[in-house]
């Protein structure tokens, strides 16, 4: 008998005895545990995610569309009157300069003894037509000469010094109103040497 054949027969015997011996089965509690884990993990990463992706996408799309439409309906109507500038231009120093030049020209034509506010009204054809910039400039001194003259208001530094001088003189109310006007024109001015 060849060695190989003998080996094969031996192996078969061992295998048969082993098969007869090894009949254990995985316990039920272990099976349940593994299957529960598999079900939990399987649902967590794939099934559950897939089940929710489409409805969530639809809900998000509808929600965003609704919000967009709502936002459009809330937008204020745009003023088309050329006499009234865009809001961001209203307080721009450049616009103010042009306005002052026009005001100075009108003052020179009308004579030296008229108040600037009245002149402004004459130039622009009445209070309703005056720009918001002019209204800011004239607001602190509605009926009289502003506490800080227009020439002083040309530069932030000189206007600032004017306000400081008003405070030093004890004219707090005037200084406050000038300061309010100043801050609307020069919101970013910083005087390193002094507070308000």
């Amino acid at each position, binding site marked *: 008998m060849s060695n190989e054949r003998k*080996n094969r027969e*031996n*192996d078969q*015997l*061992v*295998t048969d*005895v*082993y*098969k*007869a*011996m*090894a*009949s*254990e*089965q*995985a*316990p039920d509690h*272990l*099976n349940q*545990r*593994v*299957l529960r*884990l*598999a*079900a939990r*993990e*399987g*649902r967590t*990463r*794939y*099934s559950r995610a*897939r089940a929710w992706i489409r409805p969530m996408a639809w809900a998000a799309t509808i929600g965003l569309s609704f919000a967009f439409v709502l936002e459009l309906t809330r937008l204020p109507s745009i003023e088309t009157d050329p006499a009234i500038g865009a809001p961001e231009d209203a307080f721009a120093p450049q616009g103010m300069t042009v306005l002052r030049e026009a005001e100075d020209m009108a003052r020179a034509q009308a004579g030296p003894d008229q108040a600037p506010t009245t002149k402004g009204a004459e130039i622009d054809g009445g209070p309703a037509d005056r720009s918001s910039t002019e209204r800011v400039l004239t607001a602190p001194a509605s009926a009289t000469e502003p506490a800080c003259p227009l020439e002083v208001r040309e530069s932030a530094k000189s206007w600032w010094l004017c306000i400081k001088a008003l405070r030093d003189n004890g004219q707090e109310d005037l200084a406050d109103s000038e300061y309010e006007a100043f801050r609307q024109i020069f919101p970013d001015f910083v005087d390193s040497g002094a507070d308000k």
Partner: protein
Amino acid sequence: MAATAESLPRSTKTLCRSGELTYAPTMGHTPDDSALMLRYQDGDVSAFETLYRRHNDPLYRYLLRLCGHRDTAEDIFQDAWGKIVKARASYRPTAKFTTFLYRVAHNCFIDHVRRNKRHANNSELEPELHCHPGEQPETSAERSLARERLSRALLDLPDEQRDTFLLREEAGLNLDQIAFVSGCNRETAKSRLRYAMNKLRAAIDEPPEQH
């Protein structure tokens, strides 16, 4: 007659085109392990259950005989399946699923041995002495004795030889696959198996002890 693409229903043709037909369930044909694993990868939990039911008992016996302790075997068993569940996303059917499964289990066992050096020489497993119905009492006694001897001899084998023997008997792996699972070359696996078989055969043929 073989089905051509034209004779197939529309849905099947779509599957063919997308390359998903490889693991689509077919009537009268049990899907192979890799197909089941891929289906589980896509969230089909029932596919995993089928796969698990195919392999749970052999894997349990493999670990039980390898460890010699029921509790340890259960821990490693659960650990191995847990790793397979968690690694399903990266599973690629490049090799037979059985080799993948037993390689994971083998690695879990090695990790366990490294953590607990004491596992080896104090097995709690007792050979099961049970009669098969219809066996003659003498035959039954002889076979019981043979099983008992084999069981003891198996526990006395070195880990590597026992591992090789169990991979062949429980997982049904060939020498190349055993070498892959054990991380050795084919000749080493062959040599280990030969040694194990000879020792087990000798144990079965051992003359009864004289009292």
